[in-house]
């Protein structure tokens, strides 16, 4: 018999087998992506914007306050200038960022829950339910998203078009693609022996899904969530820009809508439309960078590729240095002679 004892057997542990075991190490650590410069930039962008959205509204003044100094460029008093009606752009940007983040988070959560339910539960149960869920998902997949959103938003009267309405509309049109991905992934995971083993030991179906299958899907779900947040913020900005956003809410989209209505572009008031546009672009960039790092967890090949490239670069550099060094010694010998 070989390999019965691990190499690090300690006599102390042998002598006292009744000693309580160390708390079980969880699998969470393996789910975290490796820190790379890209991930750091992404996290910094997302973290910075989220902090801005959380804290800045408390520090700035009333974004609706109208002053008689319209369309002033950035100055010491108004860091990002004022709008046509003399409202502080920085204050507006702070509240708009918060509004957009709210929508993004709400839609992200809703869409992820919907896609997880239809994707994972359907694939786990199989047979008729799976067929029904797949059909349902496919129907939602081929519904053109933005036109439907426009129709629904246009149909709901403006007074009752609140934050939740927009969030639900965006979530309902945006979950299907993620559900398909999760469906495929679940089909693969549920075939694994450990799922069968837990069924044989008598686990209830919901526990098999939540405890045995779900953790192995977490990287995929996280990636889908991040994607849903980006899509939601962009979708909401698009809706608000054409004037179909949530009523009496302030988001980056409504800022752009008012800037457009106020002829900001033709008046050359760049401080009015550049900040919200840039904010959307930077937040999208940040989340995408985070998403690429999550992709590495899902597909270790990408990680190997990156490490391989780095090793190759380092080897090349070393080789060059060696060549240079040997040339130098050769030159020294030459002069010595």
């Amino acid at each position, binding site marked *: *018999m*070989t390999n019965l004892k691990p190499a690090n057997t300690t006599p102390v542990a042998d002598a006292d087998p009744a000693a309580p*075991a160390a*708390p079980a190490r969880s*699998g969470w650590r393996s789910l975290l992506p490796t820190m790379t410069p890209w991930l750091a930039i992404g996290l910094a962008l997302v973290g910075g914007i989220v902090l801005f959205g959380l804290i800045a509204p408390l520090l700035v003044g009333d974004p609706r306050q109208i002053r008689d100094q319209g369309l002033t460029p950035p100055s010491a008093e108004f860091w990002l200038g004022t709008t046509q009606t003399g409202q502080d752009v920085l204050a507006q940007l702070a509240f708009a960022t918060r509004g957009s983040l709210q929508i993004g988070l709400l839609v992200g959560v809703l869409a992820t829950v919907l896609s997880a339910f239809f994707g994972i539960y359907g694939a786990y149960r199989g047979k008729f339910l799976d067929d029904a869920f797949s059909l349902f998902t496919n129907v939602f997949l081929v519904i053109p998203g933005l036109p439907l959103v426009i129709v629904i938003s246009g149909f709901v009267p403006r007074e009752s078009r609140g934050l939740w309405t927009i969030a639900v509309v965006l979530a309902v049109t945006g979950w299907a693609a993620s559900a398909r991905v999760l469906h495929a992934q679940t089909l693969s995971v549920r075939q694994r022996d450990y799922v069968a083993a*837990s*069924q044989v030991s008598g686990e209830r179906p919901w526990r098999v899904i939540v*405890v045995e299958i779900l953790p192995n899907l977490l990287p995929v779900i996280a990636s889908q969530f991040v994607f849903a947040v980006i899509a939601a913020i962009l979708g909401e900005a698009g809706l608000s820009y054409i004037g179909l956003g949530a009523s009496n809410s302030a988001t980056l989209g409504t800022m752009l809508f008012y800037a457009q209505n106020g002829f900001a572009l033709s008046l050359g008031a760049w401080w009015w439309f550049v900040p919200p546009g840039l904010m959307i672009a930077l937040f999208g960039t940040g989340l995408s960078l985070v998403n690429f790092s999550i992709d590495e967890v899902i597909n270790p090949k990408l990680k190997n590729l990156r490490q391989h490239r780095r090793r190759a670069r380092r080897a090349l550099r070393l080789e060059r240095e060696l060549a240079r060094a040997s040339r130098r010694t050769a030159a020294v010998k030459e002069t010595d002679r």
Partner: protein
Amino acid sequence: MTSVHVTDLVKDYTIRGGLKRTRLRAVDHVSLELTPGRTVALVGESGSGKSTIAKILTRMETPTSGGVKVVRDDGTEVDRAAYRREVQMVFQDPFASLNPFHSIEHHIARPLRIHDRTAAGEETRQRVLEMLERVNLTPAATIAPRRPHELSGGQRQRVAIARALAPGARVLIADEPVSMLDVSIRLGVLNLLGRLQREDDLAVLYITHDLATARHFSDEITVLYRGRVVERGPADAVILDPHHEYTKLLAAAAPDPERLGRVTADAPVDRDAIDNGACYDHFAGEWREAGVPAAEARAAVRD
């Protein structure tokens, strides 16, 4: 103690290919009997229905016809609710049968908790450590918090065995438990299974395609071919005195250390010719129609 009576088991799979539907009979009127303290080996090539029988016995598949009856010593039949406590399974691939996300402790603690063998908390942890020690995984306290990828194949298979025994199983289905392991640790795992069987008086169904380990480890061998039982009998009798053409083929395929030189593959075998549709029963000492229940066969011997 618990025994299992499999009678006239049939499992059909429907294969859908476009508009055509064909039926594949994976298991064809198989009868088996598992009794406490005895090991029955189920031998056959890939696709002969071994794993399907294992799946039916563990209730992962429902049979098309025929039945599985699990009976305790006092004559009461094991019902649905208690089935999973009595009948457990060790999977073939130890690299796939443990969830990479969870610790070893989780894998053994869950069956204990599900079947109310322990109260939550410290008692469960103690039981987990006991189970790990029973399968020679020591020091248990350092193994328990690890995750599967930190263990070797042999160690993982021991964890899988501990998990199967955790609910207090009386019947163990071992689906090729050593085929994925290094040759050097196979014997260790098989001896462990043998020891646990003696200690707990387990009824074991040992599924394999390896005649050598089947003879070493089991009391009785049942040879499956194309879903049918083609030969059954005491382990030595089946291997040393095979009657069915397919069993002869299997026995000849096993490498023989006495024979020198390289054994080259013979001419392709005519599969239909070796299939005579009958089953040689060593207990009865005669050919029978395929599908005669083992109990009847054995009863015939006793008469």
